[in-house]
């Protein structure tokens, strides 16, 4: 294995990041997050007949639902084109004819896109953080920062999956189809399937293992991370309320999320070698 040249990775990452800044992708996504987070913060309790800031727990609970739908989709759409797009356009050969390795190319692409996604996520939720800090003080900010950090990790995990799709696909259309399928699978179908099996088996399905099956879905890890950081919120969720306290350790869940970031990237690296 050849040595990594971080200068090459930084050059590639810098270009990816600047491209997203220049075409206002970061700005657009940040605006989407800002608008949605503010709307949800103020109107999240409307169904219960309340508007305005209620509590940090309810605010985060509302935002978790938003993030679970939105961030995976944005990350998948951001990354699915990264390699297959270069390959299909014909620019991949030119890049690989330069003194860069495939691993450097992959990491450069990933880090540049990850920086754009992270910046848009942090900036997008920043205004809400200021409001919550003014309302609930440091305790509120502490939980909200945890939520933002886990949102970033969720985005990075799905970005990693998107790059894997981009490496294994031979056509952009196929990669985009797979990205959408993956989003449906993780965000919509996975929990529904588990719940269905649980109900159909009269609560017997999976036994003790059921909680650990949730670790197979980064969206569920994100949910567990946020739900178990706030005691009052455990009762708000159905499926995740069965999670044993052992899985409530944020460091453990953070580690699981990091595994969801590194494992797809590692597989993508392996597949991209040939």
């Amino acid at each position, binding site marked *: 294995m*050849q040595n990594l040249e971080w*200068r*090459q990775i930084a*050059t*590639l990452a810098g*270009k990816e990041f600047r*491209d997203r800044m*220049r*075409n206002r992708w970061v700005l657009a996504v940040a605006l989407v997050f800002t608008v949605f987070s503010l709307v949800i913060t103020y109107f999240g309790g409307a169904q219960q007949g309340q508007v305005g800031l209620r509590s940090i727990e309810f605010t985060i609970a509302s935002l978790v639902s938003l993030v679970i739908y939105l961030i995976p989709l944005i990350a998948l759409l951001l990354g699915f084109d990264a390699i297959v797009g270069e390959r299909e*356009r*014909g*620019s991949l*050969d*030119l*890049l*690989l*004819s*330069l*003194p*860069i*390795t495939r691993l450097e190319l992959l990491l450069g692409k990933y880090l540049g896109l990850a920086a754009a996604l992270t910046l848009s996520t942090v900036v997008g939720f920043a205004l809400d953080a200021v409001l919550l800090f003014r309302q609930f003080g440091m305790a509120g900010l502490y939980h909200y920062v945890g939520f933002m950090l886990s949102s970033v990790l969720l985005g990075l995990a799905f970005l990693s999956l998107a790059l894997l799709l981009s490496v294994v696909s031979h056509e952009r259309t196929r990669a985009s189809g797979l990205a959408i399928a993956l989003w449906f699978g993780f965000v919509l179908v996975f929990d529904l399937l588990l719940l269905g099996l649980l109900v159909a088996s009269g609560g017997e399905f999976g036994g003790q293992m059921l909680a650990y099956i949730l670790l197979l879905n980064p969206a569920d890890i994100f949910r567990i991370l946020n739900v178990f950081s706030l005691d009052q919120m455990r009762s708000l969720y159905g499926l995740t309320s069965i999670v044993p306290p052992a899985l409530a350790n944020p460091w453990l869940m953070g580690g699981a999320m990091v595994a969801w970031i590194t494992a797809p990237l590692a597989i993508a690296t392996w597949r991209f070698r*040939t």
Partner: protein
Amino acid sequence: MTNSSKAAPSTVAVALHGVSKHYGNVHAVDGVELTVQRGELFGLIGHNGAGKSTLFKMMLGLIAATAGEIQVAGTSVRGSDFRVTRRKIGYLPENLVLYDNLSALETLRFFAKLKGADQASCPALLEQVGLADVGKRAVHEFSKGMRQRLGFAQALLGKPDVLFLDEPSNGLDPMAIREFYAHLRDLREQGVTIVITSHILADLQERVDRLAIMASGKIQAVGSVHALREQLDLPLSIALRVEPSAQAELKAHLQAISGVDLQVVDGEVVVRCPRPVKMAVLAALSPLGARLIDLHIHEPSLEDLFFGLRS
């Protein structure tokens, strides 16, 4: 494969020994033996699917050979030290795609960074390819010819020792093609080795030092155009214009020479004959004296050689 540390002779810029690339039962490249000398302008021609692009990609280390050994600038393309050698290799792909959102100067600077080339050289390179005035314009505003020029400038980053140019005259107008080949001549005189493919065989005919003709993944012939003419022994044609009263006499003289084929097209007598009887044909014209109005000798073109070899 042979040991990658085994250095090629110093005069050889590109060396291929027994190189094959198989995709299942398809032999895209099959047992290619080829050497390109340092400072040589070398053409690689072949029909679509002949294996040129695959061979190009293998010479650049983009795809691995199924068998054989490739050395470029004395380094095995499979070796870890080929990464350093890449800094001294320029490549212009056939279907050049650049980043539309970058300006010409930004494009060059991006590739210069990755290649480890001096970024200060970028404006001068734009000047060399005639794009100095549009260096700050976004690439998406460029015509195909301008993109090709920018691609060529990109290939010249870092003063390469070896240039691989795949259909480099794509999109260039005749004047730009002439300037482009003049540029290649200058580079060759500076010792740069150039491997070039083109579908426009007439462009290559008078410009390459040697060429290889590929078909079905194999090198069918290698040499200078002159050497290939000798090797293939294709007939040459001589177009003669004579006074109408002299045509019958001319035909009589020429039909006496064995191997000569005569045709009259628009009043012009076209003689096709094997190269060894060329002088005999010319000698047969002398009795006509001033009744011979005009004469053109057409050596087999590169296109003739290409199709002659295929048939």
